[in-house]
């Protein structure tokens, strides 16, 4: 069971370890364990035969030092390693990446997507409900008490009129467009602000723009009114 090093990857990594420095067999085994955080626990039974095989292929040699075999890489071994650098990089990346971290990234990404999406749809649903209510009210008003369109009189004579405190009715029909625009403006701004991480500077800047716009509107209404 269990090798990270399928398809000749163990062989590749053994070459890499011996390229770093000549090592004896036991050192190779404990290094494999260290580097891979216990993910790969190689046994002497898998490592020694591979070293022997590498030696038979002329990629490593060994010498006896103090009663132990010390393995070192040959020029042919270095060539093979150079040819497979990309593969080695992939192998190391694969082994370091933790499933837990990956899963956490996925979870955070899905959460972010879902949060944006829910917000967007909630807004859209609310807008649609408001529009449809609006339409219904219009339909009702038209059928119950169609007015003449001359709407400048101070005494409203439309049934269902509940006074100027109802925001939908301030200013008469011509102002309705303004109201809708304002609402659209609010929704738009809200959506923009929600999607981005606003900095304090941006908030201040936006606030200044709003103040300026209000001033303009105030002036316009004062002059024309």
């Amino acid at each position: 069971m269990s090798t990270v090093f399928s398809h000749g990857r163990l062989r590749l990594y053994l070459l890499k370890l011996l390229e770093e420095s000549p090592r004896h067999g036991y050192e190779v085994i404990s290094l494999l364990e260290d580097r891979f955080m216990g993910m790969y626990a190689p046994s002497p039974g898998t490592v020694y035969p591979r070293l022997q095989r590498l030696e038979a292929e002329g990629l490593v040699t060994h010498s006896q030092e103090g009663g132990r075999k010390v393995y070192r890489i040959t020029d042919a071994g270095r060539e093979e390693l150079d040819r497979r650098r990309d593969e080695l990089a992939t192998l190391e990346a694969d082994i370091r990446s933790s499933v837990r971290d990956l899963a956490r990234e996925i979870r955070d990404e899905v959460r972010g997507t879902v949060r944006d999406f829910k917000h967007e749809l909630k807004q859209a649903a609310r807008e649609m409900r408001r529009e449809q209510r609006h339409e219904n009210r219009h339909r009702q008003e038209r059928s119950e008490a169609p007015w003449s369109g001359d709407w400048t009189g101070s005494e409203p004579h439309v049934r269902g009129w509940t006074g100027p405190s109802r925001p939908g009715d301030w200013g008469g029909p011509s102002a309705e467009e303004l109201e809708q625009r304002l609402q659209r403006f609010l929704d738009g701004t809200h959506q923009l602000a929600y999607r981005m991480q606003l900095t304090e500077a941006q908030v201040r800047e936006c606030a200044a723009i709003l103040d300026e716009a209000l001033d303009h509107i105030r002036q316009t209404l004062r002059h024309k009114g």
Partner: protein
Amino acid sequence: MATWTIEEPKQLTFDEVRRLRVRTVRGSLSVVGTDDQARLEVTDIRGMPPTVRYDDGVLEVGYDDWSQPGFLSWLLGRRKWRRHAVVSVAVPRDCPVDLGVVAAGVVVSGLRAEVRVRVMSGDITLAGLTGPVDAETVSGSVEAHAVAARLRMQTVSGDLTLVDGGGEVHARTVSGTVTCDLAAAGSGEIRLSTVSGDLVVRMPDRSDLTVRLQTTSGQISSAFNALKRTGRPGVQVVEGLLGAGTGRLWANTTSGNVALLRREPEEPAVGDAR
């Protein structure tokens, strides 16, 4: 067969995993599909150490005293609630997974095979699944992104959300909301229900669905003019045929609102924006 008792953080790799089955108590559980080798990581272990079994391609993580049929009766021992482990598994994409946890968040991603998740208390996150998915939690939400085939999700007190859904959807919650974005509606059956939460569905302009939206005391609004109000006193219904009407959309709530939104053709799904 190989067995490990995981007393301290450990990582294991496996040459072949054809089935995965996990039963844990607290902590968290993640399963991701991989094109590489299957591997298992267990960390943050408290209480009794979990056991890992590997036998002929079947990988199981659980507790030794868990008796086969009765997950619930097994839970009745109070001490078992102290068990805690963070379990993360990478399995081949075509490996079916069966997950059960008591109180933990679960993440499942990148699989083509069948997925089954049962949680008592905790959120379920699903991403990039093309096989049939069955996700159930009691108190927690289900958030799904790009689940293409059949998705059944159920909770009592959480929200259910599907972004970029493809095929059949069954979603049922009592007090939470259901929010769905359907990429291509027209084949399977979409059944959504809540008791008190709102239902919001967005789907493409050209959908082939037989639609019936119903609420007892909420409001229904729809962006599709082909649908007509047909309710009788006490029940509001909006229904009708869209396109060829080959699929079915059925949404029912007692006191929530229902909104059926239109996805403009040029407007990509939220998830496509990356």
